[in-house]
């Protein structure tokens, strides 16, 4: 089955897509280093903008589109970091890998997603794990508000494969993120954790569907978010257990922290269960910081804002701490600045 996913990609790639960024880990390979993949998007040159405004082009030609493929052959083990950068935030020395740069022309307004006044960046991530492969994947994204994101991810897990996925999104523009994970092989396992932060007028929708089609699969999913100002995040988390997936054990949790009145968290956890021999559950909680906890921290000498920040980082910490420690620290500071924890009323 080697190379199947890459070949499919080459056929399906759109004309204007950059080269496919692909990682292939051969059978039985054990790579202990973290493989880093930096995807850098730059602002459009002014002439591109003028050109785009003058004649209406097909939306497909405007789209900046990027495909990433990660494939593990049987019993391979790997750790991969995929990171999306904006050119202004990615200085050359911070990048770990040879960056893939791309120009992003202005996009016309999309129906599904308000991308007016921003640059549209579409990514597609494909993951395939063959039998008993193990992948530890981290996907990080913090693009400024001048970009809107549309992210599609698709993972297929073979027999006994284990996928550990840490997803951190602090994009400041609007975004639609769709992830589909298929536990196709018997006894495959998914361990997914996501941390999401939004402030100002950011709108984001995260759609995660986990499909169990083979017996004795196991999935654990946790999605944590923090929201400020009038940010609006929606989480749709589906666990679908087909009739063939007997003995499935699945859990999905969604925990939202609403930091200010007017911020809005929507939670749609869903279960679709088509057989009886299962243990499936989901939980969702949404709330503000607990007054008791704030009071405790303030009684220890923190001011209200600092106490709140500590609670936010504590909330997201369980996800961020799954990253390698240097990244976890960096993500904490990104979370703090993306949520504007150190400033007051900075929305324009």
């Amino acid at each position, binding site marked *: 089955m080697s190379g199947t996913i890459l070949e499919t990609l080459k056929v399906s790639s759109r004309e204007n897509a950059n080269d496919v960024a692909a990682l292939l880990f051969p059978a039985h390979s054990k790579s202990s280093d973290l493989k880093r993949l930096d995807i850098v998007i730059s602002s459009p040159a002014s002439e591109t903008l003028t050109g785009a405004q003058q004649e209406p082009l097909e939306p497909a030609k405007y789209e900046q589109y990027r495909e990433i493929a990660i494939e593990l052959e049987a019993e391979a083990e790997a750790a991969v970091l995929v990171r999306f950068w904006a050119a202004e935030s990615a200085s050359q020395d911070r990048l770990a890998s040879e960056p893939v740069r791309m120009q992003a022309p202005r996009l016309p307004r999309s129906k599904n997603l308000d991308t007016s006044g921003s640059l549209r960046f579409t990514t597609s991530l494909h993951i395939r794990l063959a039998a008993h492969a193990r992948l530890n994947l981290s996907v990080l994204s913090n693009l400024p508000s001048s970009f809107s994101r549309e992210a599609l991810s698709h993972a297929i897990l073979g027999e006994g494969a284990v996928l550990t996925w840490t997803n951190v999104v602090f994009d400041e523009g609007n975004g639609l993120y769709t992830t589909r994970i298929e536990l196709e092989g018997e006894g495959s396992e998914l361990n997914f954790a996501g941390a999401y932060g939004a402030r100002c007028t950011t709108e984001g929708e995260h759609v995660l569907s986990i499909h169990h089609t083979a017996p004795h699969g196991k999935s654990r999913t946790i999605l944590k978010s923090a929201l400020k100002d009038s940010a609006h995040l929606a989480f749709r988390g589906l666990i679908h257990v087909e009739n063939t997936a007997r003995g499935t054990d699945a859990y999905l949790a969604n925990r939202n922290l609403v930091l200010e009145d007017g911020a809005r968290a929507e*939670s749609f956890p869903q279960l679709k269960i088509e057989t009886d021999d299962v243990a499936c559950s989901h939980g969702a909680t949404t*709330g503000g910081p607990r007054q008791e906890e704030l009071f405790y921290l303030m009684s220890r000498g923190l001011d209200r804002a600092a106490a709140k920040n500590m609670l936010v980082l504590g909330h997201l910490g369980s996800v961020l701490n799954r990253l390698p420690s240097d990244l976890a620290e960096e993500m904490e500071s990104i979370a703090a600045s993306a949520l504007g924890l150190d400033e007051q009323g900075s929305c324009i």
Partner: protein
Amino acid sequence: MNTESAALQPDASIRTIGEGYAERFGFSMPNRSIVKTSQGLTEETVRAISKTKDEPEWMLRFRLRALHLFQTLPMPTWGANLSQLEFGSMTYYSKPTESAQNSWDALPLDIKSTYERLGVPEAERKFLAGVGAQYDSEMVYHNIREDLKKKGILFSDVETAVREHPDLVKRFFGTVVPPDDNKFAALNSAVWSGGSFVYVPPGVHVDIPLQAYFRVNSQAFGQFERTLIIADEGSFVHYIEGCTAPVFSKDSLHSAVVEIIALPNSRIRYSTVQNWSSNMYNLVTKRAFAYDNAIMEWVDGNIGSKVTMKYPAIFLMGPGARGEVLSIAFAGNGQEQDTGAKIFHFASNTSSVITSKSISKDGGTASYRGLVKVEAGLTNIKSKVECDALILDPHSRSNTYPTMDIRSEQATMEHEAKVSKISEEQLFYLMSRGLSEEEAAIMIVNGFIDPLVKELPMEYAVELNRLIELEMEGSVG
């Protein structure tokens, strides 16, 4: 008559409740309706219904406006499959006897025997409150105990209330569920007939549950009852609705509207055990407004019907209001139970609890579909949702579709759902104590729905446990 004397024995009747639908409830009496509208829904039908009921002009106008809305509103694009529903081939009104009776003996014999087989007289003998028994769409049997009357409690069918208390009806009718709410609310508003009207004066505590036993008899006949309950300040009332319907070969439609107004400091509990026959579409709009410090509780059991779409809603309108929904659904062969609850928090210091249990079996589909919404700027909001589902065989399905929309920092919202089969350990333990596998499974299922059952009055609890046992028969091994 043998059947009659058997029915008079309370023990015998409890033992036989729900036994084999076709034998017990599947009797269809000869149709002896006095007035029956032709099939299909037109303006003439609506005018005919209104004329038969001798209604005031404002009610006729309300009906006609609703009819127009019904014809223009779209069918829901979500939820259960309603494609087999034929609005054109249904009769929208039939009136069984000339006027409502308040004495049991004055009822025609066949109607009486229908009720005796349902066990209504026993219920009366057990000192239950006034029984408003609905045969087809008109209240034919109505009995309010004297002490209720003395306290100033109004309990009648809605037609009587329109005549006798037009001010109250005009003030509240259609305010909680307006006709343009959805297609089925519009349909009900256009052709409604029967249903209960309850008004409890300020400070009055109704000690005994009020009951109405609904009954659908004519084939392909939609029952569109309309219930309006108003609890004035500081009062309390428990209203019970129970449904059984005979088996018919053609699909039938039940589309009720229930409007409830809990004024400040009052408390209303509304309990339903719905056991429609397996060809019934049960598409119901139930909604309650709870004002300052009021408590609204829905207790909802869905056993029968082909398709049920029912989401009792509570609007928490005033500070300190509290809402609670407790529901169970049992989906058997060919059944689709699409049930849930909706809670809207519109005021500070409000709280809500939803507890939903479902059991699916023999290829049935049970779905929970719910919504909890908290507006911005509110403080001290608490909401808790718990959904448990049991799947009893590999061919049945269970879905959970909750929605939570929170816009306030001072809110705490929790949702928890789990789906599983009967635990092997529990079965093993009970069997090691000498129970057969079937007995053990029944005991576990009855334990599963216990939180709801214990909230029901005894007669209903017994009936529900018995129904579950019957549904479970032959399901193990």
